[in-house]
């Protein structure tokens, strides 16, 4: 396990940013998802020892719970969300200084800075002042800074923020390489769900300081149900009425006789065709699709709202 949280609570004055969160982040790449203000960054900062939790417990790797924050930062690399750089320094000097501050000897820091900057894709640009970099280059410097001391775990806070599609693809590919080729554990905090879906095997979904659900991406996107899109000819009300007993969620009726029906995983597709036929309709289009993380997230939010803030993962598929 990379990180374990038990009843973690973080408060800023009277405002409770994280409300008794219990979550597990297995080794590999884990997405920490949620809208802005969900409490993701607060969790990361508490893990880094930068914020003192009001309550609860945290464990990173096998480190004891009361480990000195400086020791935690030696095994963890952090890529901050906000644009940040050290004034007047170029890319190479920034990464080298970060390495020296983490504890690398001077010469080793210099060698390592060159290596990680090449890895991040800033080989030719590393002697230019960071203040003149594009957003994508700044993100790469931040990634190189997080990687320079060869941490076991990387906390990446919104790494694709402000990137154009090509830059985003490059960044996601670098992140993927770090887990698949180099065995790093990554906790990727993001509100861009498609990014997380692309690189993470496991996710923890947060909303308003609470965990809505957590699990593997594969499990969550196929959780007990299938989503079927239908285009049906015939009496709309009758077809809708016929589909209702088969659906596990309210049938969504769209324009041009289009329906979205969420059915149980094990339901036979033939029953759907039969129900439409019995209602006097004709199936003109049938399309089944796997749920995206975005749908899982929105579904979990809706369920939580209906249940008054319940964080039961089962609510996702309900």
């Amino acid at each position, binding site marked *: 396990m990379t990180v374990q949280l038990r009843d973690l609570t973080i408060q800023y004055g009277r405002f409770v940013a994280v409300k008794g969160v219990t979550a597990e982040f297995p080794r590999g790449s884990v997405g920490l998802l949620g809208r802005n203000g969900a409490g993701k960054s607060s969790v990361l900062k508490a893990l880094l020892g930068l914020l*003192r939790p009001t309550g609860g417990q945290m464990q990173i790797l096998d480190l004891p719970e009361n480990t000195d924050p400086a020791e935690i*930062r030696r095994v963890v690399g*952090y890529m901050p969300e906000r644009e940040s*750089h050290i004034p007047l320094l170029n890319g190479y000097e920034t990464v080298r*200084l*970060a390495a*020296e501050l983490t504890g690398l000897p001077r010469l080793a820091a210099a060698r390592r800075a060159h290596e990680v900057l090449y890895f*991040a*894709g800033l080989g030719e640009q590393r002697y230019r002042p960071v203040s003149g970099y594009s957003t994508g280059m700044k993100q790469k410097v931040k990634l190189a800074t997080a*990687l320079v001391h060869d941490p076991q775990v990387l906390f990446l806070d919104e790494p694709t923020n402000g990137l154009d599609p090509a830059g985003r693809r490059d960044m996601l590919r670098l992140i993927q390489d770090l887990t698949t080729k180099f065995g790093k554990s990554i906790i990727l905090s993001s509100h861009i769900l498609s990014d997380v879906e692309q690189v993470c095997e496991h996710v923890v979904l947060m909303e308003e300081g609470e965990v809505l659900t957590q699990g593997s991406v594969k499990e969550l996107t196929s959780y007990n149900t299938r989503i079927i899109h239908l285009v049906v000819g015939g009496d709309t009300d009758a077809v809708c009425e016929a589909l209702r007993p088969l659906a596990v969620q309210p049938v969504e009726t769209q324009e041009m006789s289009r329906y979205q029906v969420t059915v149980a995983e094990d339901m036979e597709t033939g029953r759907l065709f039969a129900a439409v036929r019995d209602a006097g309709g004709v199936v003109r289009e049938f399309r089944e699709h796997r749920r995206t993380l975005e749908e899982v997230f929105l579904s979990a939010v809706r369920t939580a709202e209906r249940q008054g803030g319940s964080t039961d993962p089962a609510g996702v598929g309900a």
Partner: protein
Amino acid sequence: MTIFDTGYSAFQYEPVSPLARIWSLARMELGKIFKSKKGLVLFILSVVYVMVLLVLTFLNLGPNSEQFSEIGKQLSPRLSPFTREFYLGYSTDAFGFICFVLLTTIIGVRTIAADKAVNALEIYWTRGISPWGYFLGKWIGSFLLLVVVYVAGPLVVWLYGLLSAPDVTFMQETVKFVPSVILALLIKCAVLSFLAVGFSGLSSSPNIAMFMWLIGILGSRALVTILKGFARRHRGDHPEIVQDGPDWYDALCPWDAMVRIEEHVAGITSVSDYNVWIAWASLGALSVVLLVLLRRNLRTTEVMA
């Protein structure tokens, strides 16, 4: 080479001590002045006086030195390398004051505030350095810069004097006071760089920090002048003589307080002759206030939240 041609490699290392990390930061801070044209010009301007001192030393100790030495001593002790005033004068006069204000304004006073403005503190504090370690690194860096300008210069001039003097008289006469002069300059650099970096830590942007610093230095000097004006009175024994307010008002200005301490340590009779402990108390109180405010301003939660 494309971005995916270079693989990532594991890396083993034995962490260096916290002091070595602070030194890395201080070194970086010291080098910053040479990274911009503005800083470089200012640095050169600040060390121009060393050239003047070298020329004066040459005139005093070189050929025709006797003739010049006599003239110099009659004009001002600041023209003779045999006096304390020669080495200290340029750090206490108006030129030294202007250079100091410019130098600290560009370097020390901006340093932490500039880091805050571009969220650099997130980088520092997610590494292995504490907020106080960070402050110490910044202070040492700014201190060393002032040392290069205000201490190394006179030291080089004195060493040049030792090497160019025709006999040991110069060494015998100057070795008695040069250590105290150097100590005075070191104290001045340490205290003023601390105040400059402290002001920087309280501000969220470099411009605010510079404004606060200028108000602190120039404003307090103006305040002293006004207060002395209010306290102006006729002397009892000589009513025709108008006397300003008490000299200790000068201690309200950090620069003047520091000059008083500097002259005391170097053994020079000060124009403003009040108890030197008042100057120490004034700077001490200011430092304590700064530390208390910095404790809040540099908290990780304040910056990261």
